[in-house]
């Protein structure tokens, strides 16, 4: 079965490192997918603020395209896209008036949506379709010694995720452990990163980023792992502001797929690690070589 890969705007823009690492990892694990042809913006949170039915119509076009292409499931790596696509599906079923509007709008461009296609997140697919055993088998360079704070953010667990617990999701914890990393207990794992507030109300946004980074640092994490391009952007790119306002909790934030790529021994330059402002320089020890005596510093802070 092939997935309809829905990258969303972020993975083609600020979240490029996510796509760059996700696609090789999926291929490496034999997950078949093709990019949804002529996909459009999912509607996203900003659109919801203007007109809910317009947002739903935008999302529904993508779902309709996937159905037309005969692809059974949509793969949405961006947490915001994941939420909006799922929300649209729920509204389509729960509210006849919304269904009517969606049907009407799609008919205007000769599309139709049956409301069946599941929308799934790569974390769900990797854990439940590929399975931890298959992932473990691919690990050639276990992430031994790397302490990771698993950061899920909001929108993949709330309010529509069905594959994990809303209060205490563990999918990424299990995945990281399978890669050989040490998972630190991170009570802020589902707290909000501030979303677009970093740009719109910077003081509120950067404070939230600071709290997330600082708590991870206090708990001894070497890095945070995320599943969402906006979370990664906020935690990574606003480092300078956080630093100037609160002090320096310098801590890299990587996509979970980048850590998978490292553990699978995929070529490093294909994993988009250089896209980060605060780069993860830690590398898994080569199991064949003797253990390194002096570990390199984990972090390469951005020059300022």
């Amino acid at each position, binding site marked *: 079965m092939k997935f309809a890969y829905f990258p969303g705007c972020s993975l083609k823009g600020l979240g490029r490192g996510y796509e760059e690492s996700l696609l090789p990892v999926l291929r490496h694990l034999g997950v078949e997918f093709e990019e949804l042809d002529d996909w459009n913006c999912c509607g996203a949170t900003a659109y919801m603020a203007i007109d809910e039915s317009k947002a739903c119509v935008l999302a529904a076009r993508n779902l309709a395209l996937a159905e037309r292409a005969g692809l059974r499931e949509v793969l949405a790596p961006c947490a915001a896209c994941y939420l909006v696509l799922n929300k649209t599906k729920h509204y389509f079923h729960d509210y006849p008036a919304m269904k009517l509007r969606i049907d009407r709008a799609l008919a205007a461009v000769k599309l139709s949506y049956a409301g069946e296609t599941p929308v799934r997140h790569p974390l769900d697919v990797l854990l439940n379709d590929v399975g931890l055993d298959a992932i473990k088998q691919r690990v050639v360079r276990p992430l031994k010694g790397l302490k990771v704070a698993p950061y899920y953010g909001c929108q993949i667990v709330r309010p529509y995720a069905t594959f994990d*617990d809303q*209060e*205490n999701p563990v999918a990424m914890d299990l995945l990281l452990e399978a890669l050989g990393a040490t998972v630190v207990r991170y*009570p*802020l794992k589902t707290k909000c990163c501030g979303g677009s507030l970093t740009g719109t109300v910077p003081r509120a946004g950067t404070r939230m980023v600071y*709290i997330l980074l600082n*708590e991870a640092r*206090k708990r001894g994490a070497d890095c945070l792992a995320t599943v969402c391009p906006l979370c990664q952007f906020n935690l990574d790119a606003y480092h300078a502001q956080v630093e100037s306002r609160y002090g320096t909790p310098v801590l890299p934030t990587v996509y979970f797929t980048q850590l998978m790529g490292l553990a699978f021994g995929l070529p490093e330059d294909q994993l988009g690690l250089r896209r980060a402002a605060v780069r993860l320089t830690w590398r898994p020890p080569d199991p064949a070589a003797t253990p390194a005596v002096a570990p390199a510093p984990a972090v390469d802070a951005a020059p300022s």
Partner: protein
Amino acid sequence: MVSSSTDVRVGFYVCHCGHNIGSIVDCPAVAHYVESLPNVVVSRDYKYMCSDPGQELIQKDIAEFRLNRIVVASCSPLLHERTFRAAVSAAGLNPYFFQMVNIREHVSWVHTDATAATDKARALARAAVLRVAAHCALEVKRVPVHPDVLVVGAGIAGIHAALTLANAGRKVFLVEREPTIGGHMAKFDKTFPTLDCAACILTPKMSEVGTHPNITLWTCGEVVKLDGYVGNFTATIRRRPRYVNEDLCTGCQECIARCVFKEAKFPDAFNERLGKRKPIYIPFPQATPQVVLIDPEVCLNFKRGTTTVSGRCKRTCVDACGERHAIDFTQTETTGEIKVGTIIVATGFQTFDVKRVPQYGYGTFPNVYTALEVERLVNASGPTAGEVVLRDGHRPQAIGIIHCVGSRDKKTNRWCSRVCCMYSMKLAHLLKEHTGAEIYNFYIDIRAPGKSYEEFYDKLNEEGVHFIRGRVGEVTDWAMRDEEEGKLVIRVEDTLAGFVRRIPVDMVVLSTGLEPQADAQQVRRLFNMSCGSEGFFLERHPKLAPVNTFTDGIFIAGCCQGPRDIPDTVAQAGAAAAEAMALIDRGYVEQEPNTAYIVPDDCSGCKSCVPLCPYTAITFDEATKKASINEALCKGCGTCVAACPSGSIHQHLFEDEQVFSEIEGLLVHS
């Protein structure tokens, strides 16, 4: 049974029920309409038919107009059918020449369009008028009531009901699942609002149960089967082995001291697993019966699934018991049958499982406790002898008590558990007394509606306990400030102040709600009761029959019917005992004569009815090749009537002719 369709004289009465019916249904119009129907001699509307003047109106008309059929359109027959049948009977008419029409619960209370409601009332009245013509005179059957009572569950409700009955001279069988009676109340330290010591007021009653000549107490027992009907139940009771002979054990507990386990090392359920016990133990010092028991899960003697002495077990308990020979490793499960006339179900509640609200950190943070754990923690006979020492060894300086955990929450239990506000305040008082700590109560609303409850709330305010109105968002261990380091932080909106607060504490108490026992559904089926949507047992009527169930002769008391505090539980247990006694003292029950019967001439002898009857009331006579029904066994469901291919089976009160008339009456266009 003679159906006399000749000279049928119907009297019809439609009730306004004050405004309850009259405000939607045009009662005079209904009465006027019915007047035109065949056989109707009198048709009237009246404000309150169930009142004495209403009933007298019917009786007067029966005499004056020689009425021989009565129809009353008012409330549900489940409420007042009995009233009107008695009134009809008092006027000299057979009570079964009566039919009731439900135009309140099924019409005026559920419809808003007056025209449609009045139309429907007309149709229902017409159906009853047509039906009643086909009614027959029937005799009420009387069945004797067995004078013994079964009480299921020996918490405070079961104990009080059993003692009330026993003191009145009734024989009571009291069955309890646990090895001791006492239920949840035995675990409490003090009781609100009087702060009576729970043990001081409960244990005298417990020992009275243990020694009462009229009470047969079976602990470690469960009712597994129930047959029969009101007045004549047969209950099957299964008892788990205790491995100690109750008649021989004197409760000296020397065996416990001599057990090969020198230290108590197994979690103690009575102390909410905060303390430890040995494989041979007594749940708590005042346990009733004062008999030890052995836990086969951990006793070495039972290791490897054999009763031979294992390597390490020296059977020192047997030696300690000596001459008394009370310890018996060969005990097995036993079952027995008893006959009783009435049953009181008092199976209680379970507390909400706090693991279902992970945001409050139970299981993650050792210093988060359930309220029941704190009851044991402040109890002088508890695991810490009343010292409030946290799991991490510290003494708390600040304590947060979170109300409504697993109550008033659509995601878990949506009902208010009624007792949590008060017990939270009681625990706040006790914790303050024991520790002097700062105490914060986080509540949605304070519900203190009992006698002296509001005064208790005042007292707590006086003691300096903080009350913060707000449902807690989360309990975490991440610090924003130095004063929060190493503490549990409660994040909550102080809704009266209008802002969010973060409050660091050392200890969090979760005031768990009450919910139905895990096996409430099985118990309900066993006793043929109903459950409400929350899963608590359903009373027959919330106001007028609060301890009755839909099965005659079976009563409910205590928290199995819904959350309530001790005073209410005791009152309800007394009421259930009185209801049982009323049946016993009368000596008989009247049975609705709705049994099925066979007209032998029509029976083709096909036997299809025989296996249908769950009560084996139908037998087949091989000599005559006809089936017959034992009316004493028939419960009147009518399933065989509907199934008989030759139409030879009939049912009193639900004759085909009566139902067909009713159908026709409902549908004829007026």
